[in-house]
């Protein structure tokens, strides 16, 4: 057990209307990996942002290497050796690996940048870390996993003393995660202090020494990883035992009509000859690894991206979907995985977002009937239990789960028969998650049909009536829920050609 390098004590932070951190404590030690866990919205990111100077704390103290400090901004924190490796990588894809690592402090020869020297230094760094990457390679050509390694190498080259990993494994494959863990273990043995933020329980068990759990902006406790079970941690996180049982058989009658049929759909590099059918009242799960082409298939089907070839039939009628406008006309609604970019207009109100796809229903002659708009928005807020003070609140002020509910409300207002849920619960806390599951089940009970793209195996097994598996743009499997297991889905998801 190493000595303590950084302590946060009684950290308090409020935003208008939200008490984000309520006197939270955290202790980081040398030669140790500390897991920081909690549901989304528990305050993990806020705490790390306070630490690295992105937010100013209202109360509390931060002690680093024996001195009380407060970093002015992230670069001050970086200078002092406290570095975050972000979930989204901050890499310039057209530069080389070495250029990325030395960005902002290029090695110079006179007034020119010395690329040869930088490559040499980067190679030394990689050797020290046992990473096998060519420093002269262009960053954009590397896999996400390798890019992450570069990010870590960059942190090390800044003489990091504390490295914070913010959900590093979200975009990695199994082997890449293994490689990442090797490096983390290596760094731990060299005495590095690390914080590992993740939702994946098995990773926490595999790599961390202690677990600090947060819930609703408060500190719940810290436990030794090897002395605790998965259930212990989950109990601390949610304050209750949750039990997710997989669906054992399809709820769709055998003779349910086909509402959507896709034949030989091709679009760009990521969608190759995809065919499938969707039945009335069915939840059709789309499983696969990241980059399997599931989102691309949905976007091509919805007309968001152009398709190269393929036929789409709705209720037996061949339709020509060239744009989202056409798709919406045929009763398809799309809930994107990236809500902030493709789902909601964050600068606009809940009511304005709710009626976005159905404006014509809310017109009184030339003018918008704002009263009716508010009424309908309120109905949905109440039915979906959206947590928002008013319907005139801008969506930017809502949490991820509530933003998702606003997007759902938008499509419910439209009364779509086919809904595409792309990662419906990504970035949403467990409470809101089960509400969204209940809602999806209600929707199919009403006779709507759902395509659900999900990277979470438990979600796929719990919600789907049938599962389609994709790998590298191809459909590699289709399986009824009664026969689906984690293992056979995973097998199909890795059927590379």
């Amino acid at each position: 057990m190493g000595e303590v390098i950084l302590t946060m004590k009684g950290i308090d932070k409020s935003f208008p209307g939200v008490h984000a951190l309520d006197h939270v404590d955290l202790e980081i030690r040398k030669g140790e990996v500390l897991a920081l866990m909690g549901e989304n919205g528990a305050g993990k990111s806020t705490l790390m942002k306070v630490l690295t100077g992105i937010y100013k704390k209202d109360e509390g103290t931060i002690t680093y290497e024996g001195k009380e400090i407060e970093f002015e901004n992230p670069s001050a924190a970086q200078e002092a050796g406290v570095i975050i490796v972000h979930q989204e990588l901050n890499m310039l894809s057209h530069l080389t690996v070495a250029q990325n690592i030395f960005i902002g402090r290029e090695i110079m020869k006179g007034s020119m940048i010395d690329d040869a020297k930088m490559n040499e230094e980067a190679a030394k760094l990689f050797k020290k870390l046992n990473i096998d990457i060519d420093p002269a390679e262009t960053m954009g050509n590397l896999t996400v996993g390798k890019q992450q390694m570069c990010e870590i190498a960059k942190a090390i080259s800044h003489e990091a003393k504390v490295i914070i990993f913010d959900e590093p494994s979200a975009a990695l494959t199994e082997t890449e995660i293994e490689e990442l863990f090797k490096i983390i273990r290596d760094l731990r043995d060299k005495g590095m202090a690390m914080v590992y933020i993740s939702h994946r329980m098995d990773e926490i068990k595999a790599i961390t020494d202690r677990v600090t759990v947060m819930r609703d902006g408060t500190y719940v406790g810290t436990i030794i990883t090897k002395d605790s079970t998965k259930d212990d941690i989950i109990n601390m996180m949610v304050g209750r035992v949750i039990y997710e049982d997989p669906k054992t058989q399809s709820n769709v009658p055998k003779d349910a009509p086909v509402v959507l049929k896709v034949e030989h759909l091709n679009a760009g590099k990521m969608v190759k000859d995809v065919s499938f059918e969707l039945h009335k009242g069915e939840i059709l799960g789309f499983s696969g690894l990241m980059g399997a082409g599931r989102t691309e298939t949905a976007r091509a089907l919805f007309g968001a991206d152009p398709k190269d070839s393929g036929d789409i039939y709705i209720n037996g009628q061949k339709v020509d979907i060239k744009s989202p406008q056409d798709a919406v006309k045929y009763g398809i609604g799309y809930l994107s995985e990236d809500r902030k970019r493709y789902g909601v207009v964050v600068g606009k109100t809940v009511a304005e977002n709710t009626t976005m796809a159905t404006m014509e229903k809310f017109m009184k002659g030339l003018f918008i009937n704002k009263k009716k708009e508010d009424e309908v928005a309120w109905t949905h807020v109440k039915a979906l239990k959206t947590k928002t003070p008013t319907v005139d609140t801008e969506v930017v002020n809502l949490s991820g789960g509530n933003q998702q509910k606003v997007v759902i409300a938008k499509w419910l207002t439209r009364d779509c028969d086919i809904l595409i849920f792309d990662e419906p619960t990504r970035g949403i806390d467990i409470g809101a998650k089960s509400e969204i599951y209940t809602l999806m089940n209600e929707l199919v009970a009403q006779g709507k049909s759902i395509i659900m793209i999900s990277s979470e195996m438990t979600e796929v097994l719990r919600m789907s009536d049938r599962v389609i598996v994709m790998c590298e743009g191809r459909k590699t499997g289709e399986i009824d829920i009664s026969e689906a297991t984690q293992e056979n889905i995973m097998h199909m998801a890795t059927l590379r050609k």
Partner: protein
Amino acid sequence: MEKIKQNPIVKKIGFNRLVLICVMILMYLMFGAVCAMMGRASFFTIKRIFNALNYAYFLGFLALGVTFVIATGGIDFSMGPVMFCSALVSGYCLTQYGVPLALCIVISILVGAVFGMLNGYLVAYWKMPSFITSMASMMLAKGLGSVFTKTQSVSWPQITDPVNGWYRKLVKITVGDATIPTGLIIFAVISIICAILLNNTKAGRYITCLGSNKEAVRLSGVDVRKWEALAYVICSMLAGVAAIFYVGSYSVVQPGLGDTFNNEAIASCVMGGTSMAGGIASIGGTFIGVMIVALLQEGIRAVGLQIDYQYVVTGAIVLVAVYADIRSRKRRN
């Protein structure tokens, strides 16, 4: 401070707009004081106010129009020259070809509409950057106006003209000693129409929404291209309207000019709280912004300074306004 901001009346008008009105009044008093101190003719005269208003009308229509474009997250640098092109083409038709005046007013607005459709089509349908597109159409407007009149300036008829003088009554009507500022009434009415268009109609809703997040609006099944293009058409048609008020005040238009008015119109807009990032727009703010720029223009001349000083002051005000916009957006996130 917070207490004032939370006051329901202040909230209704908008705190920033109240500050702007105070700035305007202060500026008016300051110019008056400086004129008095320097022993110049009094600034507090009706004539000065009418001079400022003459400037406010044409600039106001340009600024109202560009508010829509900025709300989409775009920019239009062509409206000043488009206004001159409209005035040149319609004026040339009037003076050289004897086209009836009423028809010439329609021609002026149509010339604007053509440029608006060009800008809108290229930006919305061909995804060309609005900055470059409007720069190019600025050149086109300057060049075509000049070609049409064979590089001659055009003099619009005076109020004394028995047949065609009536259009000046759109700007002001003199009855005995009293002068009725009809231009101000028309400007106010069109401002209100623009505010309703922006806040209470489908067009305005989609224009501000797509300025905030175009992709999300498109994925809601909305034809974003149509609404984005519409903003440019509104903008340039209002430039055609502005042309009539320009010649109604100043009579003469020369070819090859007009770009300085772009900056002033955009400045008025930004001052009024319309965000250059798109999505947030205020017609009321633009209205006050226009009045400030017009007052500034008249005030600088009244104290005997060169027009260049006006650019310096306008530039400084715009910087402050943009900084305030960025600050407030940072706080919101």
